[in-house]
């Protein structure tokens, strides 16, 4: 695709983004259900309500671009092109999971498509993404590295260190902050000293953009700009996507929102519904297509569950492998 084209220029590609959003939504609803039924161990951090960011951002990436993500990363993983069956198998701790059951939801990973890993440590993906960007530069690739992280993570020291280092080296790094209003139980308005996290880019001399994170075309557009700059060697950028976390922090958490009516209000901004309307306006979506899309997504998810269920539980002996590569 040329610099000007986007997946929003044609019905087929736009609809495939829509389907991706549904796939994420249904995958996570399914995962929460499996957790409740005791079929997933550990926990699950749903990104329900934030699907436009994952899909919007990843829609302008190549598979050779690198993505670093978080425990709230199913959406990024799916949008980057992962095999949903192997994802589900990993959540269910099966041999055919991406990480053979060693990682689980928090450590999903598929390097072949440039999905370089979710992360259980808030903020830790940022310098790793910086290093990926550095390596791309050293290899003279025009690929970029993208790091997803939360509003809470934007206060971590590594954010600052990474931003500064990426700036002085003008690295092809795009920092995508999903500002969903909370870090676990703590409101962003309490924990973060400024309202627009994008403004922090000013402290490093690169551009920062705040965007409505529930508006897929808007997210996509800004990402295109940031990624194009990065590919062209013009250095890093920071995109803040304002969104909302509908669900509890993770399947293990107590329900908690400072203002419970918030959630209701935000659900009116359902990113999927909004993108659906956009597609309808374009004349690309009608009810039958909509139904088909959802059904296809649902089908993929249920096939994933079937696949995972049919896979053996992670075999005991695997516990001791993959600590080192070399047997010296």
């Amino acid at each position, binding site marked *: 695709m040329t610099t000007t084209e986007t997946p929003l220029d044609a019905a087929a590609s736009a609809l495939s983004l829509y389907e991706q959003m549904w796939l994420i939504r249904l995958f996570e609803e399914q995962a929460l259900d499996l957790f409740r039924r005791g079929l997933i161990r550990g926990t699950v951090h749903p990104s329900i309500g934030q699907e436009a960011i994952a899909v919007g951002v990843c829609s302008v990436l190549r598979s050779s671009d690198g993505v670093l993500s978080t425990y709230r990363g199913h959406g990024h993983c799916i949008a980057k092109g992962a095999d949903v069956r192997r994802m589900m198998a990993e959540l269910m701790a099966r041999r055919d999971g991406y990480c053979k059951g060693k990682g689980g939801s928090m450590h999903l990973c598929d390097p072949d498509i440039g999905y370089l890993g979710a992360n259980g440590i808030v903020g830790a993906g940022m310098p790793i993404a910086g290093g990926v960007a550095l390596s791309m530069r050293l290899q003279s690739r025009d690929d970029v590295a993208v790091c997803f992280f939360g509003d809470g993570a934007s*206060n*971590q020291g590594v954010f600052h260190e990474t931003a500064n280092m990426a700036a002085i080296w003008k690295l092809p790094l795009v920092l995508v902050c999903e500002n969903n209003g909370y*870090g*676990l139980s*703590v409101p962003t308005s309490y*924990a973060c000293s400024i309202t627009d996290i994008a403004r922090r880019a000013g402290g490093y001399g690169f551009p920062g953009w705040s965007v409505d994170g529930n508006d897929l075309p808007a997210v996509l557009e800004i990402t295109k700009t940031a990624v194009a700059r990065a590919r062209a060697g013009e250095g890093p950028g920071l995109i803040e996507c304002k969104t909302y976390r509908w669900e509890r922090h993770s399947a293990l958490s107590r329900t908690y929102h400072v203002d419970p009516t918030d959630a209701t209000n935000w659900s009116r901004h359902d990113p999927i519904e909004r993108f659906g309307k956009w597609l309808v306006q374009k004349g690309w979506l009608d009810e039958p297509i909509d139904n088909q899309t959802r059904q296809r997504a649902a089908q993929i998810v249920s096939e994933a569950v079937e696949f995972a269920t049919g896979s053996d539980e992670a075999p*005991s002996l695997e516990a001791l492998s993959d600590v080192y590569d070399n047997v010296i």
Partner: protein
Amino acid sequence: MSMTMLSEPNIVPSAKKELTFAQALNESLREAMTRDPSVFLMGEDIGPYGGLFRVTEGLYQEFGSQRVLDTPITEQAIIGFGVGAAMVGSRPIVELQFSDFMALAMDQIVNQAAKARYMSGGQLSVPLIIRTPVGTGLGSQHTQSLEAWLMHVPGLHIAMPATPYDAMGLLRTALELNDPVLFLEHSMLYSTRGEVPVDPYKVPFGEARIVRQGSDVTVIAVSSGVTVAAKVADELAAEQGVSVEVIDPRTLAPFDMATIVASVQKTNRAIVFHQACRTCGIGAEIGQRIMEEAFDYLDAPVTRVAARDVPNPQAKSLEMVVLPSEQDLKRAINSVLYRSPA
């Protein structure tokens, strides 16, 4: 109140109540904050939410946002702020949400908190308590047992309570120490119940608890491992007539070597049981010290029952291989007794 008891020795024995481990901590925190205005709490989600494991539940509501401070997710600064506040007269009790996150704050814990008194020639004190859970079941980055790192660092106190009684009593003592205390709480313990006296009591640092008397072999266990060891001991007594002495050091720094040595002099065999990785875990230190101090009494090498040297996997089927089990402990006991397991 305990003074009163001493002067009235003939009244009814101190009343008891049952609390969970989390409640015992919660009560000690409430008590400390009530008694001492210099105590305050700081950490992630410890405010209105009450802490991931409910240890601070209700305290925000009771003491307000100035003394129960929710923080941003910035572990290094959380500990650093604790160090600074402790230097000038406060007694911060800081929570790290998982002990794995110590890795983000080791500079403040090790290079600052632990060394401030020494480097300043005794001028500075850092009476900072860091509470943090150790766990299982949440994969490689949320379940590490890193107490050996801490035990390697002079200047730190380390507590690893195994019961509600010890949790409460050790936390009371921690609040009287003028140096940093790492208070390691196993997440599997939070909901366990136990009796504690209604009247205030303290558990000193550096005094091991003999959990169960025995004559054949000494098992040194910490934290959530103590109950497991006691259970295994009971089973072995019943099933095989083996008499296991179980010792819980309760604190790693200071460390009560005397109680362990006395026990080994009696049993002539020792096993250290812990959830941390085997290599360079506290089992190495304890085993080595037993050898140093009771060499002539040992009829078998001190043996470690510990986690395999791999990161902790998420899948239960895998984690079971990695973490030390009751079976592993039983096997080790039989092995140091040179018996084939029944």
